[in-house]
């Protein structure tokens, strides 16, 4: 793998974590007054897939979408402003954390109702096909998405029409506080279910984001060429609570042993060590890079101070075009 992309893989993960930590550390000031689902612990999937996607590829996502927005090229300032309810937010402060959009980078939107954005992604892919474009649509979903009927309706259509769609299922084992074992039969694998529907299905790991990137890049290239529907399941772990900014592992709903195992193989730490071990960057240079990222995120956050309070009157006309 080229040095350039290896560093990017580390840098983007670090950036996403920095943005999410910035939100977490400031959430208690009660100025970000909207339900917020952080991606800390899940950055590797967004990073590897986001970097493997081309700008002209489309992505669409669900409620936990900050990482997907950022990895597609989105500006942290737009998230910060959106969460604070300013007109400068990516959705003018109307959508909040669960409704992000960045058309410049073909991030077509994230929505709040589980599985709601799946058919919309499939429809976007139908349009790409009609226009004879050689790009793909990446639909990010969680493990609960496949419990909704619309998932099956949509993947059926996508396979039927041979659409260039890649489903990326981030399986973090929880729907709010409810574990996968209470929601799906224990021996049935999510990716196998998609395979049975007719998708080309894969199960990948997030532990080594560099390997994950290579595998995803390979799959995406195939999809752009062959126009077939793929499904990728990647097990992952969210470090903080489902919605909000606290560590809620003390509540007892998840195994602390299991949780510790995930933290031990944190992809961000793995990536840092990987760069050093492979002599792609030394400790000193990484520290400089880290500092630059942190400083930039701090600046992006400080910029909010100059923003004006928007007026309700200004958005009434947005109900219709």
């Amino acid at each position: 793998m080229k040095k350039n992309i290896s560093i990017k893989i580390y840098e983007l993960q670090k950036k996403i974590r920095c943005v999410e930590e910035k939100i977490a550390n400031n959430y208690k000031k009660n100025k970000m007054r909207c339900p917020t689902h952080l991606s800390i612990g899940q950055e590797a999937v967004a990073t590897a897939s986001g970097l493997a996607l081309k700008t002209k590829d489309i992505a669409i996502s669900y409620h936990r979408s900050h990482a997907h927005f950022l990895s597609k090229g989105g500006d942290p300032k737009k998230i910060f402003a959106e969460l604070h309810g300013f007109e400068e937010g990516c959705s003018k402060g109307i959508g909040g954390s669960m409704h992000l959009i960045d058309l410049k980078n073909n991030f077509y939107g994230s929505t709040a109702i589980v599985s709601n954005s799946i058919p919309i992604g499939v429809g976007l892919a139908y349009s790409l096909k009609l226009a004879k474009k050689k790009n793909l649509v990446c639909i990010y979903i969680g493990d609960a998405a496949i419990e909704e009927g619309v998932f099956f309706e949509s993947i059926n259509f996508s396979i039927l029409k041979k659409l260039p769609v890649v489903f990326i299922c981030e399986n973090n084992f929880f729907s709010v506080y409810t574990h996968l074992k209470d929601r799906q039969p224990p021996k049935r694998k999510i990716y196998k279910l998609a395979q049975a529907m007719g998708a080309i299905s894969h199960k990948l790991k997030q532990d080594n984001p560099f390997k994950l990137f290579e595998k995803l890049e390979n799959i995406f290239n195939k999809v752009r060429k062959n126009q077939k529907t793929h499904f990728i399941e990647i097990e992952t772990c969210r470090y903080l609570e489902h919605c909000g900014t606290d560590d809620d592992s003390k509540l007892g709903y998840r195994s602390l042993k299991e949780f510790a195992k995930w933290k031990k193989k944190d992809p961000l730490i793995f990536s840092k060590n990987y760069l050093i071990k492979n002599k792609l960057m030394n400790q000193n240079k990484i520290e400089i890079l880290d500092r630059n990222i942190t400083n930039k995120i701090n600046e992006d956050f400080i910029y909010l101070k100059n923003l004006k309070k928007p007026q309700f009157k200004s958005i009434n006309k947005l109900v219709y075009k």
Partner: protein
Amino acid sequence: MKITFSQAINKALTEEMIRNKNLVCFGLGINDNLKFFGTTKGLNEKFGSDRVFETPTSENAMTGIGIGMSLNNNPCVMMHQRLDFFLLAMDQLVNSAAKWHYMFGGKKNVPITIRLVVGKGWGQGPTHSQSLQSWFAHIPGLKIVMPALPSDAYNLLKHSIRDPNPVIFIEHRWLHGVEQDVSKVKETKKINNSHLVSKGEDLTVVTYSLSTIEMLSIKKFLNKNNIFFDLINLNSIKPLDLSLLERSLKKTTKLLILDSISHPICSIGSEILSQLYRNKNVKLSKPPVLLTLPDVPTPTSVFYTKDFYIKKIDIIKKINSLLGKNIKYNIIEKNLHDVPDLQFKGPF
């Protein structure tokens, strides 16, 4: 030469497909032998299977897929042979189509037209006969149109397709065979949200969709009995434009709302009454009359539907009481109450 309501829809669809090469039509039954009550005849042959296609029986996903397409430069016409099946798609309609433009700060709009057919008679029963314009009207971000005449269907469909917003186009099954002189069915630059179908001094009648045709079918009889009325047909349910109605009421001061395909609670009729009640310019000389179906689901048996549906005699009784008259309805009905005409043998 005459043109039917379904031929007018077919004409509008064909012309719009030619006009906009990115327009896509889909729905269950769109390419089958019956051609969606004749409304999609020739489309597949003319425009190909990429733009005119049959769908899996997946109402919710197909609505979302239509939204996705319309976000990406492919406006859509989606169609359902019964409105009741579309209830499976409420998430996509309410949470996506209606809100997309607003909740993403006006970044993208959803130009999708959803054709919904409402059934009546021949035992359509509780789940094949619902006309839920009131539900849809409650949702900010949607537009709802309900044509009555072929010329309305033709123009409303064209304007719905060109509208940059999601539009629900509700067509009553019993209107498909309604005929009009072909010269009347031509494109107009603007659509009126309501228009005057007939003129008179005695009372004002508000109707839309099938109820307009019901009222027209007793016009001659009423005129013969020296009763003349303003008939205001609502083309658009949302936005609801009552300016024509307000003007008419100044003259007649008597109001009958024939909301005959709707249940009474939170109906379009009750919305009209609520708006008029709050309007200081409107003064009625008699309490207004709202005629709707009962607050009961549609039964299937022909013995029950006889008293469930509103008949001509019911309308005339209400007009009698509004005008203090006692005209007898003595015309023998040619048709049974549960079919639009004697050729109609169902099954849907």
